């Protein structure tokens, strides 16, 4: 046994194709398991010793039975008992050693993989997360990795050791009497054949079952997050019906899985018993012919009994191995996903950004949008001079939010470029780019942390409490009109987010706005940040925001004239292009589309005159 053993886990399945398949997948765990390999090897060695010791005990019995007991001599009984006792204690000691060597390093492997998965998921672009429900990701991060850890520190070790034990045991059986040994060996063949059939069937079912539970978890999440809708329409029972049919599918898969397991159990129990029955008859016959001593017969059955657990466990260990293979596949599904938005090999640095943001012939289309559709952004040209506040106006779905997401590379342009101070945003490290440009989203996400931590999220240097940090916090809260946080149970230290106080949509938007402001960026990108505020609060926020915007370049997605008023200039996004840029009044005068998009004044006047007419 060497420390390289895990690279070549001996398999009990003889078919090369199937073996290499599962084998190659599991081999990919090597980089994570590498530091634990020496201890894994030592653990296997201890386990093997334990097995050999267990196999030695029947030999002592044979000596005793054939020597002393058959002659009625009691003298050798004590030494024999003490030898058995000694070997028994040694076996227990070796098993303790195996656990000590192997199990704790296994937890390190699990942790390493979990951290790697998390880091990878954070690195992957938003387009990836748009596609993958968080339930699917979660089951990979928790149960799949758990399974891999248990396999490495338990399944793999026992699989290797039990396999070797079976070989050693069969050799011992053969050396005692070749006929009995051959019977035992021949009877094991159906197990190996069935093992192959089992893999084929089981790995497919196991994967389906894992996927279906992931889907079921997603259904649960949706039924909870969408509870208001379900309640409003009284669709609880409707949701239950679709949930139940999904659960029903999972149940079908699980029962299919149980059938496969029952199949392998059948063989694993049947074969040793048939072998024992045949060995009993032939063993007794051989003894009657004088070809075997009674002591050897006793030792044969004692040895065969020791081998029973290793033989039976192979089935359980195999199914564990296939489950692990599936789990490993799922893990690498994510790690193998190529990251399309990465840091450049030779990043450029902007030491003191002035904040000139330019879109140059920017094209963008979502990867899954059909060919017959034109690019969502079809050649956008727009320049924001340093310190300028630009409002971005356009119809719902015209690509405003997508355009803002391009600035910090949440998505990458499919053609053209976005530049900051003349530098392509793709030439900067993402971390630096996002330090220069801060965003507030309409859909405000707060994390399970204090209000303070949420607001100062973009200022890692303020992680520790300091007067500067307090000042930045206070100013940002003041600008965003988020004074309400002082009335929360623990003021700015109140926990918000999923695990904390639930805030209203407007409150969350204000905290998120404060967060963008507190980041003190060169460029501020605000995606309709005031939509959930009432009129009074909105005008207060706008007044305060003006001060910040005087010195900061800002791109603001606007739906309302009041938001547009914050801007120096307005850009109109229409059919994937910027069709007009100018001050609000210029556009109002020259662009019918702008008037259509932003002005409700005429509607209002028409309605008022109608009402006046009715009143008359």
């Amino acid at each position: 046994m060497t420390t390289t053993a895990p690279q070549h886990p001996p398999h009990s399945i003889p078919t090369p194709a199937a073996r290499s398949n599962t084998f190659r997948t599991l081999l990919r765990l090597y980089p994570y398991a590498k530091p634990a390999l020496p201890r894994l090897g030592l653990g296997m060695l201890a386990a093997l010793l334990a097995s050999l010791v267990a196999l030695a005990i029947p030999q002592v019995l044979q000596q005793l039975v054939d020597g002393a007991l058959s002659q009625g001599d009691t003298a050798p009984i004590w030494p024999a008992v003490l030898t058995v006792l000694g070997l028994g204690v040694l076996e227990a000691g070796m098993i303790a050693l195996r656990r000590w060597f192997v199990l704790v390093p296994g937890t390190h492997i699990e942790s390493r993989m979990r951290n790697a998965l998390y880091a990878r998921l954070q690195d992957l672009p938003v387009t990836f997360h748009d596609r993958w429900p968080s339930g699917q990701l979660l089951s990979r991060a928790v149960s799949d990795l758990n399974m891999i850890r248990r396999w490495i520190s338990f399944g793999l070790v026992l699989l290797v050791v039990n396999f070797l034990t079976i070989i050693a045991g069969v050799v011992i059986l053969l050396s005692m009497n070749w006929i009995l040994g051959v019977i035992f060996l021949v009877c094991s063949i159906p197990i190996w054949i069935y093992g192959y059939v089992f893999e084929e069937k089981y790995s497919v079912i196991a994967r389906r079952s894992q996927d279906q539970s992931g889907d079921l978890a997603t259904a649960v999440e949706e039924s909870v997050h969408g509870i208001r809708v379900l309640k409003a329409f009284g669709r609880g029972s409707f949701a239950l019906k679709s949930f139940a049919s999904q659960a029903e599918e999972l149940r079908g898969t699980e029962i299919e899985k149980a059938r496969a397991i029952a199949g392998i159990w059948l063989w694993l129990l049947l074969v040793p018993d048939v072998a024992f029955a045949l060995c009993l008859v032939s063993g007794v016959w051989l003894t009657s012919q004088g070809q075997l001593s009674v002591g050897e017969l006793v030792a044969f059955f004692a040895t065969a009994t020791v081998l029973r657990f290793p033989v039976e466990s192979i089935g359980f260990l195999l199914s564990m191995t296939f489950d692990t293979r599936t789990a490993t596949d799922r893990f690498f599904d994510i790690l193998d996903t190529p990251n399309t938005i990465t840091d450049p090999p030779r990043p450029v640095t902007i030491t003191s950004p002035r904040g000139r943001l330019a879109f140059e012939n920017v094209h963008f289309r979502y990867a899954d949008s059909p060919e017959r559709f034109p690019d969502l952004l079809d050649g956008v040209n727009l320049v924001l001079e340093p310190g300028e506040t630009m409002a971005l106006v356009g119809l719902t779905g015209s690509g405003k939010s997508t355009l803002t997401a391009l600035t910090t590379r949440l998505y990458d342009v499919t053609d053209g470029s976005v530049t900051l101070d003349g530098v392509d945003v793709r030439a900067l490290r993402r971390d630096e780019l996002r330090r220069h440009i801060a965003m507030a989203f309409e859909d405000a996400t707060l994390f399970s942390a204090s209000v303070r931590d949420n607001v100062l999220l973009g200022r890692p240097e303020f992680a520790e409490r300091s007067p500067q940090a307090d000042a930045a916090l206070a100013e940002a809260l003041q600008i965003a009109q988020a004074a309400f946080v002082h009335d929360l149970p623990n003021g700015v230290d109140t926990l918000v987010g999923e695990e904390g106080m639930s805030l209203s949509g407007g409150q969350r938007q204000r905290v998120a706005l404060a967060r963008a402001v507190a980041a003190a960026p060169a460029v501020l990108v605000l995606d309709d940040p005031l939509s959930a505020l009432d009129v009074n609060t909105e005008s207060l926020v706008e007044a305060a925001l003006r001060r910040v915007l005087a010195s900061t370049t800002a791109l603001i997605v606007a739906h309302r004239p009041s938001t547009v008023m914050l801007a120096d200039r307005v850009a109109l996004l229409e059919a994937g292009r910027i069709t007009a840029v100018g001050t609000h009044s210029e556009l109002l005068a020259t662009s019918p589309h702008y008037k259509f998009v932003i002005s409700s004044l005429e509607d209002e006047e028409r309605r008022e005159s109608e009402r006046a007419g009715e009143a008359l």
Partner: protein
Amino acid sequence: MSVIGVEGEERLDYTKAESAQIRRRSLRLLGSLLFPVRWSVVVAMLVVVVSTAAQVAGPALIAYGIDKGLPALLEQDWVPLAATGVIYLVTGITGALLIAWYTVLSARISQAVLIDLRKRVFLQTQRLSLEFHESYTSGRIISRQTSDLDAIRELLDSGINQLVQGLLYMAFTGIALVALDGVSGLVLLVALVPLLALTRWFQVRSQHLFRQSRTASASLIVQFVETMTGIRAVKAFRTEKRNEGVFGKLVESYRLVNARVIQLFGVFDPGLILIGNVTVAAVLLVGGFRVADGQLAIGALLAALLYTRRFFDPMEEMAMFYNSYQSAAAALEKISGVLEEQPGVPDPVTPVDLWTSKGAVQFDNVQFEYQADRVILPHFSLTLEPGQTIALVGSTGAGKSTLAKLISRFYDPSHGRVLLDGVDLRDLHPKDLRRAIVMVTQEAYLFSGSVADNIAIGKPEATRSEIEAAARAVGAHDFIVGLPGGYDTDVNKRGGRVSAGQRQLISFARAFLADPAVLILDEATSSLDIPSERLVQEALQTLLSDRTAVIIAHRLSTVAIADRVLVMENGIIVEDGTPDMLISGTGRFARLHAAWRESLV
């Protein structure tokens, strides 16, 4: 403090009485889950008993073969040996077949129990009031239905099987040993003492650790899910590195707890083997002398040794049972707590049917408070005439949404009654209530599935043309056909690529498809752009003409289509009248309206 329902769920310091109360509740739940499958359980038990007995017969047959078959064979009598061999084959085959059958049977039972439990928790989740959900948080109710159910699944899948088979195996092995050789049986009985002591020690030590392990994994999950659902903010504010630090710490503390659990097994498992091996040596000792004396046959000694050794075989796997049992018990305790919660807004016991509703809503001496000291809406009465369009105006926190939630029966009033066509909402059949009254909120949640599926939530049996008509009516049709797959476009997780405004249009279409007598719009147009809002307003004017509507909006443009305006402040309706009347007055609304008029261009 009480432990009824989900109260005190996170506490670790239950008193004896509280623990007993929680355990009783879990057991009751377990009983009610097993009751429907009781006959399958009986069959499975019979199968496993017979199969285990068949499995245990082996060593005794070997003993018989050596002690009786061998001497007979020496006399040229094949019968005893052949009979032993045949019986061995038959028991072996029977045992294996029955175990295989039992595996499928027990999977059927555990899956039936699981699906029952899944449905019950799901249904209860839907039944519990919004108030409950707001305080219990979505993360916790989700983990009740996912990780807790997984813990129970694990117990049912393997834990119970191992326990039942293991216990039976040990019992039958013990019985066989006693029958074979009483003295060896006595030795085994003595060995039970350290065995039980070791098991007890393990149980006590592991209980605490498993709890810790579950807490550690829960915080891990929260951090993970939050990062993934808030990935845009994570990236925009460059918190990846810091998150890795936080997550790394959580991973490490989870690892440490796990390592401690594993170390516990590292003592328990070798301890079991030690006890087993010492017992084997003892049986050999007491047997050896008797064989030498001729009091015991050699085959019987062999069988005694085999039985003794095999007696301890299932213990290791049974010890793993504690692992799954502990977490499943904790999970069941929490789930039973959720199931015990009384819905704050319960369905009526004897529901009143209301086939067609006129849409007359009446607040009769209503007061609403969270706790007695937090009155949100002080005592008031109000009548909304059928067909009226009412605008609710006031600043954030004035109580507008609470009023709306009382009409839609998301909440029940603390005092007084809310009536629809003279029927107390609490007596109204839920299906009639939900058909008559629909509320659209600002947070327009989309479920995974197609756009058409999402609109059809308003009326599941709707045809495609009805769905399209509803979308057309609210001006959503144009953007929907512009989506890659039109009405069949998958909206992905949390409405992925559909913008906030588009989500609102879809949820509008959903409401119009439902065609309720009373429609409540709570900030339902906040994310729409002006042209869309214009379309919606126009649609509203025709669509609301024959139904009662309550509209809450910050933008006063909505007020224009209202027949009546209610201005709210601190939970009190301070102004009530037609828009013209209020605008021309000097009250709060007149000032608000003037300010808003200014902001228009």
